[in-house]
Structure formats: structure tokens, C-alpha cells
């Protein structure tokens, strides 16, 4: 007996309420964007400069006591967040201290770290020294990192637009890119809404989401292209529905295996990369949704030229004859 998440044959109508789906997606994007505009992202030091120190203590962490200990040092904006993780033992109490970039120096000075260590050791005799990790990024580099990150995401989306355009038609490219923009905005939105730390690794996650969502979209589009040739008489909506239904089993299978892997990493992979993995889990879910309800719907909305009578035009666009 086989495990089947999706029945052999399905015939869901994905486009009976397509305006509603586009509306919902649009609304979610607006909510995400508003949240981003109002709250902004909780940028890590990669993007705004400053220092983070990871501390560990055998006793309960008293954030207030730490704050009182550090405040006489006059370091400006200091935030202390305790971190909880199922992989920590009972004597592992971990917190992150973030200190803003200091006037007049790019990266942290050794004296500052030493002083922070001294005052904290007074407040908490069980504190583990030297610190587990100290990371410091100067304002100069953080500015460049923001630029590079934005450029990377834009480049990825642009490259994909061109690739799909070459391999399919421009309507497909627009549909795919709309889905990507949707995924990226929703991911940034949830990071802003939940105020999860947004650092360089999250940009890597964003690009992976771009890759994954695209993977999904392309598989559906590939089938659409095939079916457009197969069912010349059926209208676009019907062809889209058939294609999505035919690929539904694969879509669900791949999402499930990817989520299985990511969830085990989320639970067991430790707190250092949890934000990164969270972004990817969210991206897989949103990306799967968007390839059906955004990419395909936009394709339906734009319409697609069905003139396949000129074979020469598309002959060069097929890999189907590649010998494997």
C-alpha cells in the first residue's frame, strides 16, 4: 500500500475564484509592506553596524541585572535578549547582548569587550568567560552589505526573468516574477511583524526561497506549455487547471520532503541558524502557494498567445530531445 497525500486523480478548480485569490495575495502584500514601513526590520549588526556578544551562564539570566551592570559604561543603545533552545542543558542559559556602533571607531575595541566582561562577571559570578562569540561590524561595511544584499536579490529576480522569458513566453516570465516578488515581500513582512533578527543569512534564505518558488512555478509552467500544445481546443483556464492538477501530487510531495528536512533542522539545528531556517520554511509554504495562486493566475489574467503553428519559433526552446 502506497502512502498517497494526493489522490491519483484530482480535478480541483483553482480558478473559480481567481479574483479572490489575487485579492488575498494583494492584501497580504499590502499588510506585509505596511508592517515593514511602520515597524521596520529588526536589522542585525550585519546591516546596521555594532557588536553582538553571546554570553552563557550556569545560573538563570537576569536581564535587568545585566542591564544595570552595563549602563554605567555608557555604550549607547544596548539590548539584551535571552535565548531559549530545546538543545540547551539545564545549566546552559544563553543571552545575546547587542551594542550599537560606537562613535569614532569602526569595529569593536578589545578594551570595550574586556570591560563588558568585567562588569558582567561582577553581576553574575557564574558567567562563562571568555564569551562564546563576539561579532562586530563597522558602519562602513554594514552599509556595503546592505547594498550588496539588495543588489543580489534584484539580480537574482532579473536573471530569472530573462531565463524564463527565453525558455517560455513573456507572460510566463511576468507570472513567475510576480510570484517571486510576492514571496520576497511576504517573507520580509513576517520578519518585520515578528521582529525576528534580519541579518546576512536571511538574505541567503531569501534567495533560496526565490530559487525554490521558481522551481515550483517552472514545473507547473512546463506542464502548461506541454498541455497548451496537447489541448489546442480547450481554453486557457481549463488547460491551467488540468496542468496544476496533474502536477499537484509532485508539488505536494516535494514540499513535504523539503519541509521534513527543514523542520528537523529548525528543531534540532540549534539557535544560531534558527532564523535562517524559519525564513526558508515560510518561503517553501508561501512559494508553493504562490506558484499556483499567483504565478498561474497572473498567466490566466495576461492570457497567452496560443499560436503554435509556427514550429520553428519554439523548436529552439526545447530540451526534450536532449539525450539523457
Amino acid at each position, binding site marked *: 500500500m502506497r502512502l498517497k497525500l494526493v489522490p491519483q486523480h484530482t480535478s480541483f478548480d483553482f480558478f473559480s475564484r481567481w479574483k479572490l485569490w489575487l485579492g488575498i495575495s494583494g492584501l497580504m502584500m499590502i499588510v506585509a509592506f505596511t508592517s515593514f514601513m511602520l515597524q521596520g526590520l529588526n536589522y542585525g549588526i550585519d546591516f546596521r553596524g555594532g557588536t553582538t556578544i553571546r554570553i552563557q551562564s550556569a545560573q538563570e539570566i537576569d536581564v535587568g541585572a545585566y542591564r544595570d551592570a552595563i549602563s554605567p559604561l555608557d555604550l549607547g543603545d544596548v539590548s539584551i535578549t535571552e535565548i531559549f533552545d530545546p538543545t540547551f542543558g539545564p545549566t546552559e542559559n544563553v543571552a545575546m547582548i547587542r551594542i550599537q556602533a560606537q562613535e569614532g571607531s569602526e569595529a569593536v575595541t578589545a578594551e570595550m569587550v574586556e570591560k563588558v566582561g568585567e562588569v558582567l562577571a561582577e553581576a553574575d559570578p557564574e558567567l562563562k568567560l571568555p564569551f562564546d562569540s563576539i561579532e562586530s561590524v*563597522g558602519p562602513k561595511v554594514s552599509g556595503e552589505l546592505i547594498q550588496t*544584499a539588495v543588489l543580489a536579490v534584484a539580480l537574482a529576480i532579473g536573471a530569472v526573468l530573462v*531565463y524564463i522569458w527565453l525558455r517560455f513566453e513573456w507572460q510566463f516570465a511576468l507570472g513567475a516574477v510576480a510570484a517571486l516578488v510576492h514571496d520576497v515581500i511576504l517573507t520580509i513582512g513576517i520578519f518585520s511583524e515578528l521582529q525576528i533578527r534580519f541579518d546576512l543569512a536571511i538574505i*541567503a534564505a531569501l534567495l533560496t526561497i526565490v530559487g525554490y518558488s521558481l522551481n515550483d512555478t517552472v514545473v507547473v509552467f512546463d506542464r502548461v506549455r*506541454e498541455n497548451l500544445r496537447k489541448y489546442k481546443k480547450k481554453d486557457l483556464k481549463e488547460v491551467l487547471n488540468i496542468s496544476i492538477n496533474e502536477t499537484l*501530487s509532485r508539488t505536494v510531495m516535494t514540499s513535504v520532503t523539503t519541509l521534513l528536512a527543514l523542520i*528537523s*533542522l529548525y528543531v534540532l*539545528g540549534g539557535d544560531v541558524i534558527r532564523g535562517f531556517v524559519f525564513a526558508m520554511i515560510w518561503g517553501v509554504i508561501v512559494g508553493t502557494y504562490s506558484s499556483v495562486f499567483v504565478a498561474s493566475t497572473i498567466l490566466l489574467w495576461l492570457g497567452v498567445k496560443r499560436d503554435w503553428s509556427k514550429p520553428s519559433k519554439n523548436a529552439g526552446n526545447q530540451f526534450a530531445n536532449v539525450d539523457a
Partner: protein
Amino acid sequence: MLQIDTWKRVLIWLVCVTGLLMALPNAFYTRVEQSNDAKTAIELGIDTPEMQAEAAQWPNWLPSSLVNLGLDLRGGAHLLAEVRVSDVYESRMEAMWPEIRDALRDERESVGTIRKQASEPDEIRVRISQPEGMSRALEVVRGLARQVQTLTGVGATDIEARAEGDTIVIQLSEAEKLASDDRTVRQSLEIVRRRIDEVGTREPTIQRQGTDRILIQVPGIGSAGELKDIIGTTAQLTFNPVAGRGTDPDAVPGIGEEVVPSLDESGVYYTIESAPVVTGEDLVDAQPSFNQNGQPAVSFRFNTSGARRFGDYTRDNVGAPFAIVLDDEVISAPVINQHIPGGSGIITGNFTVEESTNLAVLLRAGALPARLEFLEERTIGPELGQDSIDAGKVATIVAFVAVLTFMALSYGLFGIFANIALIINVGLIFGLLSLIGATLTLPGIAGIVLTVGMAVDANVLIFERIREELKSAKGPARAIDLGYEKALSAILDANVTTFITAVILFAMGSGPVRGFAITLGLGILTSVFTAIFVTRLMIVIWFERRRPKMIEV
């Protein structure tokens, strides 16, 4: 149609076996690492029975390259430093002043008296009392300019002079600034490398980044602060009179003398006078060259005050040795052949060309030519790194088992084929990582886990397609064949797009993010390979043996 040529079959298995063999050392990481370290030590001449035993832990005929662990996994310090290249302009202009002054004084007739004006540090402003002599003055100053080697070729000189009223403004030319920046950064890089090598940590990464930055990563060091101390210590270069030479490190030096070891000759100690004649601060330049007899030598040049002291000393001590001492070690102790008046000299010895080049570098490398500003620093404790490795291991295994189970439940026998391919796939990723000497980081582990999840995608596409083809009542062989054929375009499109994003990540990212891009990119390559070649081969072999009338996917 289910035919695969024998040579293709052999090739596919060969690739798999080679990949897995390359990956094998990583399964015994500590053992192989110890063995490799011991082998290096033996090559360096430290040949003890313990070393031999450690080296024998891993047989020689097996591959022994390992995946490098990134700082976030191994612990260590990371520094990004910017070289303040403009510091050098200042000292260059200072050194230039006496020359300009003397040249203009010789032209007193036409330019009158000269007076140095206050100015920005990277320029010299000279006022002349007879402005009508300006054109002559400019001519004289420009006559001091030297040619600069540039990529564009001829025409560029190292200084530029222009007139502002009755003032001459002298600056380094743009071409010279570029050339100087490059030299400064290369010199700094060399010095940083030398200082870190002295500490003897394993596998430091010291790279130039962009035009004026240096990236320094040292695994296993306690903190970035410690690393900064190592780099920041100024090397002390001195020229001292030599009082004696011997092999006894405990020789009692006279008053005002000290005993220092020789850098190159082991067991040799020099007794030198503690007060140096000249120090490295007075050294302007050192270049590898040749003496009159064509033997490799090092020529050097002092600034004015250094030249005077050096000249006086060499005049009075012809025939006596003097020591070139760097950080309390004698680099060499040549004998003074004659009076050296001009502030420039030549060090001869039994040098090879390479040695003279190194000595020149060492002499120039006395002190950092410019200040370093640290833009970014990260310290990761070894325990945190170990925790990350452990967590990553557990997560990868659990992800692996979950995906394997799920695939077997969903596709039965075909799922098991896909699972074998998946295991080979992860092996191939590690094999490739070891082969290209890539660095595994924590996000890199995430990339592998993600690959485990996504790698089955290609197989899922194929299997789903075979199912569909079976529905339209085709024979099993035909259905399998069509399944592969029709799924191919979707597999290629989907993976090319993901690969594009991995390439962009690699090009734009740095450090850990780049590690993620590498595993993601390699994972795409290996998963496409295993899906369209390895599982297919397994299915074909199975099909040939069994010849089933019916198949269930």
C-alpha cells in the same frame, strides 16, 4: 528502449565510486586530520615514533583531503582590515622635501628664497620670493619626477607640480598613488602573514579583498582581540654593532650588550651592542639586487638622518661586522666592506636570489607601512562551534531518515532506488567539497539539509510522470522511458533557475553565506546527476533482471 550503453554504465558507477571515496575521509575526520598533521610534521623533519603511529592511522593509498571547517564550526577569529593607504603619501612627501629644497636652492638666482608653507599632509607647498621665476621652479621640481610603471604604459611620473600664485604645490600623481596603494597593501599583507605565521596557528586565511582591504581568518585563536595584538606588534628592525659570535645562548654579554639568536643558522648566537646605529624607522627602501660580481644582494636606502649616522659608523668600522636585527633575531651579520656615505648600501652574503628577495621583503616588512583600521571582527568560541557541528549532525541525520522513510512509503521499490541515489548524492557533495577544498560553514550544513529535501524533487517528477504514463495503459518499459523523457525539460528548467540563484549568492556573498551557496550549487549538480543517471541505471538493471509485466510506482 530501456538501453544504456555499457561504457555509460561503467562511467556512472565510476563517478559514484570516486565521489564516495573522496568523501570517505570526512567520515573519520579526527583520525584523518591527525594523520595528515603527522605526515606534514614528518616531512618537516619531526620524525618520532608517535608521529609515525599517528600518520599510520590512515592508509596512504586512500584519499586524505578533508572538507575545511569554517570559523563558525571550528571556532576562531575573523578580521577585516582596511589599510589606510594615504598614510604613505604623507611619509613620501616628507622624504621628498629635502630633495626639492636642495634643487630649488641651487636655482636661487631665478626663484629667490624659498619657504615651506603649512599644507595638507599629502602635499608640499613652497612659496618662492620671485614669482617671475615660477616657470623655472616648476621645471626644476618636475625634473625630480621619476617614471611610474603603469598598466597604460608610458607618460606617467610620480609627482605633479603646479603653481598657485607664488606657491608651488607638489603632490603624488594619480598613477603614483595607485601604484603606491598597491604596494602598500601588498606589503601590509606580507607583514600580516609573516606575523601570523610566527605564531604558528594552522591554516590561517590571509587574503586581499578589493583594492585596500585584508581579510584575516585564523581558526583556533582565542579572540579577535588577541589576533589584533599579534598583527599590531611593530616589528623592530635595527642595525647593531656586533661584539661577538658563538654557539652559547647563555654567554654573558658585556655591559650594554645582549645575546640574540640567528634567524637562519640554528644554534648560532650573536653578542650585539644594545644601542642600534640605525633603526628600521630610518629605512626608506630595500630591493633585491646584485653586487659587482653578479651575486644576489639587497640594496637599501636610509633617510637623511639615518644616512648620516650610517655613513659615520661605516667610515669608522670598515672590516667589522654589523648585525641586521629583526625582532631580536639576527637576519644577517655582513662585514662592512667600505665606507658607505650616501645613505644607501648593499648587503651581500651567501644569498640565493630567493633569499635576497626574502630579505628585502623582510627589511621592508619591518613595520606596517600604514595603519590598519578594523572594519569587521568576529570571534567564535570553539565550544559554540562544536555545538553547531553536533546540532548540524543530528539535524542532518533526522532529516535524512525522515525523507528516506517518506520516499519509501510513497514510491515503494522505486522510492528505495531514489533513496540509494540520495545517499550517493550526499556522498558526492562531500566528495566534491573535499576535492575543491571548499569550506563547510553552518549555513553550508543547512544547504546540505535543504538539498536532501529538494534532491528527491527530480525523482519525484520522474516517478509522477511514470505513474501518469502508466495510467494511459502503456507497457511498463515504455512508461518508464516516457517518464524520463518528458520529465527532463521540467527538471532542467527547475534546476537551472535554482542554480542561477546559487551562482549569484556565491558571487555576491561572503564567508558563511558563500559556504551556503557552494553546498546548494553542488547539491543541484549532484542531484540532477543522480536523478537522471543513477536512479535510471538502477531501474534499468532491475528491469532487465525481472522483466515485470506490471509495475507499480
